[in-house]
């Protein structure tokens, strides 16, 4: 099956020569990566390969030592205001959800629109209810996070990120902390988002998702991008030995 490329040539995010160390341990070596508008890029690789760190550097949750990040065509400078501005356009979903436990499901979702964007409460609630409907959790809107299952928490977290109307979504192992039977619901929501044309950069171990949804797959090892390609060629004829070993282990 040949996938029809849906991406445009316009860059959504461009990472240039990012280096990052924790103490003496260099976790990212001169990473270059461009994600185009509408593209779904999946990053896979063994643990400790720097996948999550790369994602966190893109959102400035980690400060890279050198290199630049361009959002659209604009260089994002290391200033609080510029970073906050960019983050409003970049949604992030974490492995451990990080819902705000002192707020209801609805409260979690309207928080950003009201506090950051200054949206009116009524309007924010309407938006939140639409998003909750979309992730299948409208009936849980008055629940507190502690009353939800992991899969439900993650879907609320996705809705919370979407409430800021981001142009670009980062997913950091969104299903790794879930019980196996709850993974499907979260992947369905992500699948749906991809179909709607959301630009996404996803770190995951879900090879089924990667195969089905990704436009491009990136394999990282020891802080470097070792191989990249479209899913068909990547899974059928990996060139790199390290990739072959990895795929051999998990498929």
């Amino acid at each position, binding site marked *: 099956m040949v996938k029809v490329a849906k991406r445009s040539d316009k860059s959504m995010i461009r990472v240039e020569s990012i280096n990052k160390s924790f103490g003496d341990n260099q976790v990212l070596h001169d990473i270059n990566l461009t994600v185009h508008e509408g593209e779904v890029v999946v990053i896979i690789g063994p643990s400790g390969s720097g996948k999550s760190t790369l994602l966190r550097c893109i959102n400035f*949750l980690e400060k890279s030592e050198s290199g630049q990040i361009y959002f659209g065509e604009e260089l994002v400078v290391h200033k609080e205001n510029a970073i906050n501005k960019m983050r409003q356009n970049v949604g992030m979903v974490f492995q451990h959800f990080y819902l705000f436990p002192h707020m209801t499901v609805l409260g979690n979702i309207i928080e950003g629109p009201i506090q950051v964007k200054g949206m009116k409460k009524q309007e924010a609630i309407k938006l939140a209810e639409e998003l909750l409907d979309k992730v299948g959790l409208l009936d849980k809107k008055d629940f507190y996070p502690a009353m939800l299952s992991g899969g439900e928490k993650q879907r609320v977290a996705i809705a919370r990120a979407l409430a800021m109307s981001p142009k670009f979504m980062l997913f950091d192992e969104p299903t790794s902390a879930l019980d196996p039977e709850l993974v499907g619901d979260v992947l369905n929501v992500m699948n749906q988002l991809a179909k709607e044309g959301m630009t996404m950069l996803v770190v995951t171990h879900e090879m089924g998702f990667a195969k089905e949804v990704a436009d491009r797959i990136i394999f990282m090892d020891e802080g470097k991008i070792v191989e990249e390609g479209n899913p068909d060629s990547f899974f059928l004829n990996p060139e790199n030995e390290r990739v072959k070993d990895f795929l051999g282990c998990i498929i």
Partner: protein
Amino acid sequence: MNYDFSLIIEKFPIFLPAALETLKIAAASILMGVILGLIIAFGRLSKHKIIYYLSTLYVTIIRGTPIILQLFIVYYGLANIIKLDPYPSAIIAFGVHNAAYIAEIFRGSILSIDKGQMEAARSIGMSNFLAMRRIILPQAFKRAVPNLGNQFIIAVKDSSLASTIAVRELLLKSQQLGSSTFRFMEYLLIAGIYYLIITVILSFFVNKLEKRLAVNER
């Protein structure tokens, strides 16, 4: 002379004004301690070196010296620069003292909040300040309540030290009546019962608050 415990009941009401003084000193110094303590806690968490060292120095000095010494420094020691009455001296000294302990309580509870909460807040575009106010502090405050309650009780009892600079609170009242009648035990017990009533009521409300705040947690 035998103890005459019927005096306790008979003289109990005349301690009421003194009990109100105790309450006022305790409440004012706790309020000051909470406000100043929150500021010092942020100082202790600051990445700014000078702010961090100054606030750490504050906590070290206040926690490392006796509260009665601090009271005397404010009342007697500062007299050359500024002559304060006993009552404001006590409130300032105890407020400054409480702030050091309350700062450490707030700092601990802020640090106990998962780093992911701040990251999640920042990832939806919140500034550091907004994330602190809306996401971190409400959760941290909840966790601070039991320890704060403990510190409030200590503050009520510590207010008795104001008797040494002639603030007309419970302990001074019982000492004065005791020395004029030689019935120390009876009057000291009255003061003790007042302290107990205040601290028991205080911990009742702290417990209630704790339960109310815990509603959303598993």
